[in-house]
């Protein structure tokens, strides 16, 4: 139990953990912490974990793949390690293949695609995705994590001819008896089920969609967590969606 005297320190601990304590109060509190007060240390640690809720309130934003390349180049330079990891090479090859497609689109998606392609005949899906990317009427939509999986993200390539491809990352494997259902939604009409995504143990997965052209243009794309075999209409929580709130 905490003494009332300590309550006074803990009040400062909140503001200290937030980084906003200043002036004499900051000096006093730092002096108190220097006495190795285990109560305050544990309290600040707990408060910092709580404050994680603040940055988690922001929508995660994937940085450009070039930043990662720069970081990796730096650490390789520091350690004299040669660039032997496959991923950067592959994404560069893909950028060549897709030619005119913006490099940014490709980098993020293909990491997911590689895992996905292990389970399907490679060349068929490769060329289907490349063709989709080449078609100027193909839309490239970002998917945002929602509900139970805020850290999930993905890309949805969609062509109103009815062909599309979804890539997801950070999507944990579904619980027993559940599945991730993918839906396309045209304005003011019922969601249309277009397939199921099975993320691998790294949370990455993909789905190639070959559906029929719809009369209305699709404007929302979503993945929901459903009981297995629920394909008539979504009933479970949305885990990824193409719209920002």
């Amino acid at each position, binding site marked *: 139990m905490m003494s009332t005297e300590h309550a006074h320190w803990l009040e400062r601990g*909140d503001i200290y953990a937030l980084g*906003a304590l200043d002036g004499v109060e900051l000096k006093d509190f730092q002096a108190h912490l220097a006495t190795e007060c285990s109560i305050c240390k544990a309290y600040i640690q707990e408060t*910092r*974990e*709580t404050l994680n809720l603040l940055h988690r*309130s922001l929508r995660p934003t994937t*940085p450009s793949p070039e930043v990662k390349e720069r*970081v990796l180049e730096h650490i390789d330079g520091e350690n004299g390690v040669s660039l032997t990891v496959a991923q950067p090479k592959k994404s560069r090859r893909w950028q060549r293949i897709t030619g005119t497609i913006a490099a940014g689109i490709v980098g993020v998606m293909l990491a997911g695609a590689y895992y996905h392609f292990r389970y399907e005949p490679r060349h068929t899906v490769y060329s289907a995705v490349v063709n989709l990317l080449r078609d100027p009427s193909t839309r490239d939509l970002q998917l945002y994590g929602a509900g139970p999986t805020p*850290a999930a993200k993905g890309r949805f390539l969609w062509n109103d001819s009815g062909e599309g491809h979804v890539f997801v990352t950070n999507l944990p494997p579904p619980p027993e008896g559940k599945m991730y259902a993918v839906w396309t939604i045209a304005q003011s009409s019922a969601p249309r089920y277009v397939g199921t995504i099975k993320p691998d143990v790294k949370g990455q997965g993909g789905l190639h969609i070959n559906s029929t052209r719809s009369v209305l243009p699709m404007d929302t794309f979503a993945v929901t967590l459903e009981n297995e075999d629920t394909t008539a209409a979504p009933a479970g929580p949305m885990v990824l969606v193409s719209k920002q709130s």
Partner: protein
Amino acid sequence: MPVEPLVDPVTLIQRIAAQNRDAFSQFYDRYSPIVYSLALRMLRAQSDAEDLLQEIFLQVWRQATVYSAERGSPEAWLINIARSRAIDKLRSIRRRERSFVLTDDPAAAESPDNVETSAGESESKLVMNSALANLPEAQRRVLELAYFDGLSQSEIAARLAEPLGTVKTRMRAGIQRLRGMLGTQAA
């Protein structure tokens, strides 16, 4: 590319400490989106946020050995690094801006409308139903000014023209509510 099991972040940091490049790459993939969104919110300019992201992850690579799971989660450790670096940058940007503002009133130089604008912008980027979005406006505001804009309690009081005591009370009430949301309410 082989599919590896999802490694828990503490193990990843331990591997990074042993200079394992693949572990670092995985750690980057997992955490760069949250760090980048924080950097963007704090610094606003994309190029500044990208530079910051790079610095933060280089620091992770170089200092993974000092991480200790007893002192907190990898996320809290990483965000702590990110915020301290971002706040340093913010302060130097503000000093730079202030030197261009020809005024002898530090409050006026310190509080151009940009902070108001950034609070407005951030609203649109908040995840619906997120913790912050669920805080009462007055509490959300002081927490945002401290956490994202790097202002101290006195600076916030000056900016909002509120008594220091009010600002402190709101901050603590806000944090207390966050604890409630996490179910970690102190007894």
